[in-house]
């Protein structure tokens, strides 16, 4: 543990399997991982290799079959469901492939959503949300509903929402998977600058080698275990 005192994420001998018709299908096998504070990690791997499962475990959205998951010093296995919810609201930011914005809320209100769980007053929430929208360059779209925004803008609002509560860890699941090349580039620039400027730790699951190249570190998962990543070979196959 002492060797990894600066780790934001520690997966210690983590295994995870799913049951399908009483048969256990292993997804992660005895995986150990340390991600230091301020890192920007891209995780790649074929479908079913356990990338999303790994992300879900780091977020406390799922629990390992065996092993421990420690994030920002907190062993997630020790937390009840209710405390885990609260912990997520204080420590994590999520970015999804499908953006997952609330269609009935404006950009500003979507960004404010995680702040509803904090003791901040209405005006403070507004200020925080406005600052987050400014970071992603969408302050002029604060009153727009998601359907009035382009895909790239929607994803930037989602990033602003993920930043609103000032998280220690940003988890991005295929953040560019639904975007055109130009918008994907914008989103990757943004993630890179958040990591560089604010020191926010980013874990990004992606299928796109170009996106993976923007990370400081690349991890490659295959059949539930990390293997040596070869970006050039991956790019060549695309």
């Amino acid at each position, binding site marked *: 543990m002492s060797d990894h005192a600066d780790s934001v994420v520690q997966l210690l001998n983590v295994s995870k399997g799913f049951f399908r018709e009483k048969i256990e299908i292993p997804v992660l096998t005895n995986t150990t991982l340390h991600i230091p504070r301020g890192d920007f990690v891209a995780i790649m791997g074929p479908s079913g290799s356990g990338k999303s499962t790994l992300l879900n475990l780091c977020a406390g*959205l799922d629990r390992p079959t065996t092993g421990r998951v420690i994030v920002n010093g907190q062993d997630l296995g020790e937390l009840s469901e*209710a405390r885990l*919810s609260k912990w997520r*609201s204080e420590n994590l930011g*999520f970015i999804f492939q499908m953006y997952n914005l*609330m269609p009935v809320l404006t950009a500003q209100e979507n960004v404010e*959503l*995680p702040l509803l*769980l904090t003791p901040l007053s209405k005006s403070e929430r507004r200020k925080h949300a406005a600052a987050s929208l400014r970071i992603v360059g969408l302050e002029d779209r604060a009153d727009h509903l998601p359907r009035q925004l382009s895909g790239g803008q929607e994803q930037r609002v989602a990033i602003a929402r993920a930043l609103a509560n000032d998280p220690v860890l940003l988890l991005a699941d295929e953040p560019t998977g639904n975007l055109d090349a130009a918008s994907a580039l914008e989103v990757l620039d943004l993630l890179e600058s958040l990591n560089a400027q604010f020191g926010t730790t980013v874990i990004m699951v992606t299928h796109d080698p170009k996106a993976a190249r923007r990370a400081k570190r690349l991890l490659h998962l295959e059949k539930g275990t990390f293997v040596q990543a070869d970006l050039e070979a991956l790019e060549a196959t695309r």
Partner: protein
Amino acid sequence: MKYVPLILRNVSRNKIRSLFTGASIAVSLFLVVVLYSLLMVQDEMAAGAEQYNRVAVQNVQGLTGNLPIAYVDRIRKLSGVRSAIPMSWFGGRYSDEKTTFAQFGTDPRYTFDVYEDYKVPPEQLKAWQADRTGCIVGSLIAKNKGWKIGDKLPLKGDIYPVDLELTVRGIYDGPSSTDREMLWFHFDYLDEALKKKNSPMAGNAGIVMLRATSAGKIPELIEDIERAFASSDAPAKALTEKQFGQQFMEMAGNVRGFIRYTSIAVVVALLCVAANTMAMSIRERTREIALLKAIGFSRSTVLGLFLSESVLIGMLGGVVGAMSAKLLFELVDFSKAMTGMGWFYVPWSTTLAGVGLATAIGLISGIIPAWRAAQISVVDGLRRIA
């Protein structure tokens, strides 16, 4: 409070569906509130009448039987009786009207002593008492039919084999708990007409209505009256005014039970409609619920959010339905279209109970869908294609 905008946005996200759900609650609540008001107002009237210590004496056979008119004097002489009057339902038809209204042959000397809660100007009372063919009419029926003092009212006998030619001598009024759609005339005028026709109905009153000197005297008085006439040709049964009124409801069958069971059926149907709406709404929002839980919304907060939506729709439907019932019967005078229903109104207590019921429907119907929303797995929910 900070969740209110989110709840409002979600309620109004599918306006048509929310509108139809709210409307189905509103229409059903309108019906339930009106039906229950019938019971409430009757109870209210009975409770209002109770303070006047009135007792109705009728033939043991019920309302189809008569009582000899001599019973009135005998009852007046009993200890604990303040005054007594005959009440004979004439049931005649006025003009060309197809429906009848309440017309009673009575004793004008004591009518307003027995019915102290009914008010008439003294000079009108005197004029009625002095005119054998005179009558007194309620303010509501006078207004609806446009009658005024001095008008002639021909009544064609339907139950009795005689016609009456009455003159309006007074118009009585009273609080909302009184029936202001009756017509009272001299019992003697009817009786003379029957005697002239040698009708066997002559010399009989429908019932005797008496006023006791105090409420405490009533049980004893009822026993005395029933005992006094037990061995006569026309044994009598005495009932408090409330019991007497309940007889009419019972004649129409178990009206109270009918109203209650109908209301329960309506409420159950509403619960199903509202629960289905919420379940549909939640199914459509699985990803959003998963997102809320992913970013830190606890199960109890998600449960609360969805229950609030359901309660809000129920409450709004209830407010519209119950208030529509209240305002409709407050602002529109239905007594003209429905003679004999002039006493009816929707009490505030029933209106508010209706809103409460709709809110409870919203709450109960939302429990299962909201609970299921709270249980949605974040991982599965986020995987779901919207």
